[in-house]
């Protein structure tokens, strides 16, 4: 069956309208197929998946403690190996909080051991499940419920892909809900690789970003088109490939559409543009490319 026809997510999930995390899961599962077990640490998806006795995901799921994505998957893989099942893919599906922050130790441990699994972080740039609190993935300039008023976040977003790449894992990639073919290609590619694989999926959140639900995909696309969230892959921690290049928008056009950035001045936006340019040039250098 063609991936595009295969539907491993049911309707009736309880994600908000326009939820990027929900779109991300749907495309991910299409490319992954049913021969997989998913570890799902606490995040919006713990709820989206539906309450007992329902499940909106048609593969086996172990709901897990918030910070255990890397560790629980380690055990699942070991048990499958002991059962002689080397075909089933083990996947962890976690939010940015569960990946960048509280689950980082377990993730780092798992990939240092080069555990044979795919770790997907869907990134909505805050703790959404608990009500939009800041995480280390929240970008510079953002309002959250714990960075309010003039205390908007004045620290940069952690570069999680580079942190994973520093572990020299076999495959790391970024993906975005607005680029489903690219996302599914990366999932299939990851599936064929052995060892630890990491996919960082940009997943807009209308509720937390203060954007209309119908703008969810457009804004996610603009994150790539501004170079804020470049699409790229890194193999064996060294071989960089940038998948999408032409810049189509300035950072301010992306920021102006979102309520979470409403308070920023022109000077703030100029400063952010500089940061984004700097990061982009760094990535180009790593990929051995020119602007």
């Amino acid at each position, binding site marked *: 069956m063609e991936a595009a026809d295969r539907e491993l997510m049911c309707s009736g999930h309880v994600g908000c309208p326009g939820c990027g995390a929900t779109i991300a899961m749907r495309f991910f599962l299409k490319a992954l197929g*049913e*021969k*997989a*077990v998913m*570890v799902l640490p606490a995040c919006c998806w*713990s*709820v989206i*998946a*539906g*309450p*007992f*006795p329902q*499940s909106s*995901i*048609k*593969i*086996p*799921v*172990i*709901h*897990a*403690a918030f*910070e*255990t994505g*890397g*560790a*629980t*998957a*380690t*055990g*699942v*893989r*070991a*048990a*499958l*190996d*002991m*059962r002689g099942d080397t075909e*089933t893919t083990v996947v962890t599906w976690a939010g940015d909080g569960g990946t960048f922050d509280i689950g980082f*130790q*377990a993730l*780092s*441990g*798992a990939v*240092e*051991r080069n555990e044979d699994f795919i770790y997907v972080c869907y990134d909505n740039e805050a703790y959404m499940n608990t009500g939009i609190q800041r995480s280390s993935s929240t970008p510079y300039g953002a309002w959250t419920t714990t960075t309010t008023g003039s205390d908007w976040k004045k620290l940069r977003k952690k570069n999680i892909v580079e942190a994973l790449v520093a572990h020299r894992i076999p495959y790391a990639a970024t993906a975005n809900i607005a680029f489903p073919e690219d996302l599914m290609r990366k999932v299939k590619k990851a599936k064929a690789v052995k060892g630890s694989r990491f996919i960082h999926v940009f997943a807009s959140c209308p509720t937390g970003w203060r954007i209309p639900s119908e703008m969810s995909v457009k804004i996610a696309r603009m994150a790539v088109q501004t170079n804020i969230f470049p699409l790229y892959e890194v193999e064996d921690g060294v071989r960089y490939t940038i998948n999408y290049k032409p810049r189509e928008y300035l950072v301010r056009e992306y920021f102006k559409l979102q309520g979470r950035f409403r308070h920023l001045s022109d000077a703030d936006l100029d400063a952010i543009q500089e940061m984004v340019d700097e990061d982009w040039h760094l990535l180009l250098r790593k990929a051995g490319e020119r602007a």
Partner: protein
Amino acid sequence: MKRVVEGSQAVAEAVRLAKVQVISAYPITPQTHIVEILADYVSQGRMKARFLRVESEHSCMAALIGAQSMGVRTFTATSSQGLALMHELLHWASGARLPIVMAEVNRALAPGWNIWSDQSDSLSQRDTGWMQFYCEDSQEVLDTTLFAYRLAETVYLPAMVVLDAFFLSHTYEPVDIPSQEDVDRFLPPYEPAFQLDTKHPYALSPLVTPNAYMEMRHEMSAAMEDVLGLYDGLEEEMFRAFGRRYGMVEAIECRDARVVFVTSGTVTSTARIFLKKLRERGEKVGVLKVKLFRPFPTEEVRRALAGVPKVVVVDRNCSFGLGGIFAQEIRAALCNVPGERRVYGYIAGLGGRDITEELLEEIYGEVTEGKGPERENIWKGLQEVSHGGR
């Protein structure tokens, strides 16, 4: 076959004989020997298992939860800080009804850093839904580890086999190591009632609303109660396989006793010697060893202590603000039982300090002199402390 082995090795031999498939551990003194031996067994091919060298105890328990959910037998060992770090995951394991077995080497909690024997670590996990067995010697440790798998896999609850730091973990004793055939007869391969499977996908441990949560918890509680009903029958099977059984509690000369010492762990061995001497002097004293702590064997305790006017509970632990934890449990068990009695809680031996025969004699002297002590909770063996300048 009898061999002289360390308590830690007794655990490891049981794990090998149980044909555990996934082991995960993170080093902490005094648990280390157990997992070093097992790592070696796995690398030599003496065990067909995966040994997961995780980066923390927290990840260790998470990994076992993942593995056991996929239907394999698992094991870990830890102590003190390591067990405390696992706390959240202990609830996950029992709530998911996973029969994981761990060896818990009783060690004090910091600060100050103290690697010696103390029960505060395991007793702090009292309410996590894990069975707890307190062992007296290395033979009991080996047998109980095998027994723990059998019981855990019958009721689908995890189990902690508890052994005193150094007094047991690092002490050499002759231990009868049963043959693989005998063990296989007592402990068949793990056939889980449920496991995750890509052919029949479902979700484990999902969001549960108030509509169903309470029933799930009630089933856990009922499973704990089932243990009390199953225990003797399963021990009978163990007796047939290995020729040994221990009981949830062991009442030693309690029948006519005027004073009974309630003990757990290695202190029981000291109490046995003390008891013998006192009995020779004609003193009517008994010892009640409590092995099973969760579920708590209320009926057995009541039966053993029926008509005993003075009960002394020796606790190598403390719940600050109330006293020894075994003492609390014994008092709770005796509540609503008709009859007059005094229950004295004695806290002794914290942080690995010796609990000697002399100390037990002193306690005996105190409780038999006149009406006995006024206080119900007494710290024993304290030295003078000067609080410079306060």
